[in-house]
Every structure is written in C-alpha cells, then in structure tokens.
C-alpha cells in the first residue's frame, strides 16, 4: 500500500512539498500525542497519527525516520513547522477526521503493526 493510495483514500491534505508518494510504502502505524511514547513505539517507516502540530513533532519524526505524520482534527502547524519539515524531508499530512477514524481506516486498508 503506497502513501499515494492512502492520501487518496483518506482524502488527506498534503501540507509539505509534493514528493513521489507512490514510492513510499509505510510499514505500519503508531498513534500517540506524547512524544516520548512515540519515541518508544513508532518504528522507522511508520505512519504517526497525532493531534500535535507544533515544531517538535518534526524533530521526533526525523529521528525515527517515520514515513509521514498525519495530523488529525484540522490541527494546524505553523509555517515554521512546515518549513522545518520540508528541510528535514518529513511529510506532513492533515485531515479534519479524528485520530480514531483515521486509525480505523488505516487498519482496514491493511496498515497494521509489524
């Protein structure tokens, strides 16, 4: 399942610069708004689903090399966060849906934990 298909199916908004999303294949997903839990639980190439939209999520995502961050409930990162994500090559996606809905849909699509 490619990120392109996920973006289309979940109608996600791409906040960062466009990339070749078809070549990104997330290996699983992790959901939490607590950064240390993400540090412990999210693996490389995972999708990270969170309500957090501030600058520090980019550093965490870059260290973990996650496939993309899906920011839920229309939480809006500020321009500095988006700029830093572009600089670090982190994909930021946004949705008005709740974390619960996104998780459920991703699970249905076969994005599960390894």
């Amino acid at each position, binding site marked *: 399942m490619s990120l392109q298909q996920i973006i289309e199916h979940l109608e996600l908004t791409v906040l960062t610069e466009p990339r070749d999303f078809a070549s990104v294949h997330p290996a699983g997903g992790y959901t939490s*708004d*607590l*950064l*240390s*839990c993400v*540090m*412990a639980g999210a693996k*490389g190439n995972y999708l990270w689903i*969170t309500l*957090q939209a*501030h*600058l*520090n*999520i*980019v*550093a*965490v995502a*870059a*260290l*973990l*090399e996650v496939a993309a961050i899906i920011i839920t409930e229309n939480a809006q990162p500020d321009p*500095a966060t988006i700029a830093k994500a572009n600089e*670090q090559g982190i994909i930021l996606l946004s949705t008005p849906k709740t974390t619960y809905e996104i998780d459920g849909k991703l699970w249905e699509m076969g994005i599960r934990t390894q």
Partner: protein
Amino acid sequence: MTSRTPTEQEIYGRRGRLITDHDANKISRIEELAYELKVHDVMTADMHTASPDMLMSEVLDILRINRISGVPVLQDGQMVGILSLEDIVRAMQKNELSAPVSQYMTRSLITVAGYDTIIKALQAFTDSRLGRLPVIDENNKLVGVITKGDITRGFLTALQRDYKEEEVRRYRASHLFEDIISDRTTLVLRYNIKAHDFIRGGNASSHIKRALLRLGADPQVARRCGIAVYEAEMNLIIHTKHGGILKLEMEPHRITMSTTDDGPGIPDISQVLQAGYSTASEQVREMGFGAGMGLINIKRCVDKMDIESTVGKGTKLTMRINLPIENSNTHKDK
C-alpha cells in the same frame, strides 16, 4: 539454456586467470560488474504476459498501455513463445490484428537463467539479436524478463551503490581512528543546549545522528543514540534553569553521551526512574512532553545509564553504547 555445468570462467570470472597489476588497472568497474551482477539482480519480475489464443490487437493494447515492447506467451503456466512489437508490425502489414497470438509469436525459445551473469545475458542478446529475453529458474519456470535497458539500469544502480559505499568509507570513523595514532583517540562533539528553547529542540540530536551515520556507524546504533540523546536534550530544555551541555564522545569500541546542567537537581532519583512520573508543567505537557518516559526510553536504548544529581547544584546523566569490536572492519561482500 537448461541446467549444465558452468565453465571455469563462469565460476571464477576474471579471478580465474592470473591478472597482473597492469592488467588489473585496465579492467573497468563496468566489466567487473558484468561478471558480478546476476540476471535476477536486474530483471523485471513483475511482468505482463499473453496467452496463445489472445488476439494480436489485445496484446497491442497491453504493450501500448504499459509502454513495453514485448511479452512472454504462456500456456498453462509454461512458456511457449514470445511476442514483440515487430511481430505486431508484421500482422499489421497483413491487416491481421484479429489473428491469434500463436500465429505470429516467436517460438524459438532463447532464455537466460536467473543465476546467469550479466555478461552471459549480453552474449545471449548479441547471439539472438532479440531485445528481450525470458528469464527462467532452476525448474525452467518463467520468473521474469530482461531487456538491455534493465542491464543499463542495473549497472547505474550498482555504480551508485559503489559510490555511496566509497563516500561512507572515506569518512568512516574507524579510518579516523586507524590513521591517527595515540594511546587513546576519541572524537568529541559538544552542544550547548538552552533552557526552554523548544524551537531548536531536537536539533542537537539530529545533528548527532547524522554525524554518526556519516562516520559509518551502524544505522541501528545511530538510531539508538538519536533517541537517547533526544530525550536527554529535551530534559535540559524542559527542566533546567540555565540549560546545559550535551556531549558525545566516540571511541572505536564505544559511544559515551552525557548531559550536565547546574540545576535545579533531582531530589529523588528513584522517583524519576518510574514510568509515568513527571514534573513537567501543564504548558509543556500540552506539547506532548512530560509523559514520564524519557529516562525509561534512554535506558532501553543504551547499554549503561548513570545519573548523579544534587539539589541546588545540578545533574549529570551519562549514557553508554558499546560497539562490537568487529565494527571497524569493512565488510564488502555485496
């Protein structure tokens, strides 16, 4: 080409004969790769196929839509021929696009095996004058298709990989340590971390992780260091009065990371080592910090963690990751 005993040349490649230094200089990397790379390294495994009773016009659509110039023809899983654009052109000349594939396909089955070298495939292309060859496995089962384009792409990918390896090797920490002779050589990276500087939070950790990768550290080791040092860096930002110093010391056999600050200090260390215990402010918690998992994450990522603290004076956190001794040797069996 069914199974048979490979020739000495094929087994030993160029290493089979005596090569002088002078000869060796003249062998290009591409020539070497032609002997090193195997057909299954470069072939296309995910291929389109046709059946003998399909119409020529149907195959034309397959070729056109997928922008390919030919397909293997399969009957009951067995390959019976190959159909290329040229065959379609012949059918078009006779206005017979509604003819079955079996009437126009090429039946002479020249194949290469997945385990064949690229040099062998190149010879097969020259001998057969075909642009695409089916690839079979040990059991004569079709496993892919190879074109000259696949070979070119394979060479380019391999050269790029070589280049990357060379770049990493050039900066590899072990070289640094081998070239500089002393009784104890260490590389020290030092970062000044400001208190409450959330804007730059995590910058030092990502710089450290990148530096370790450039120095040729195992990616798993770099990841563990990155996570440990991130938690330590954020602790300086969240909890200290004036920030502190984050230091990483690299030696051939271990990586030592530490943070030092001048307060406020931790009254009860056993408390902060409990999962979920946090003194972070409400404001910081809203940003997702203060899960009370920082030191636990660090402990999980490093081989040894020490924490010393005096209230009113400060805290020193030391983290150590041991590196396998063999880590410094360059492995090149790819």
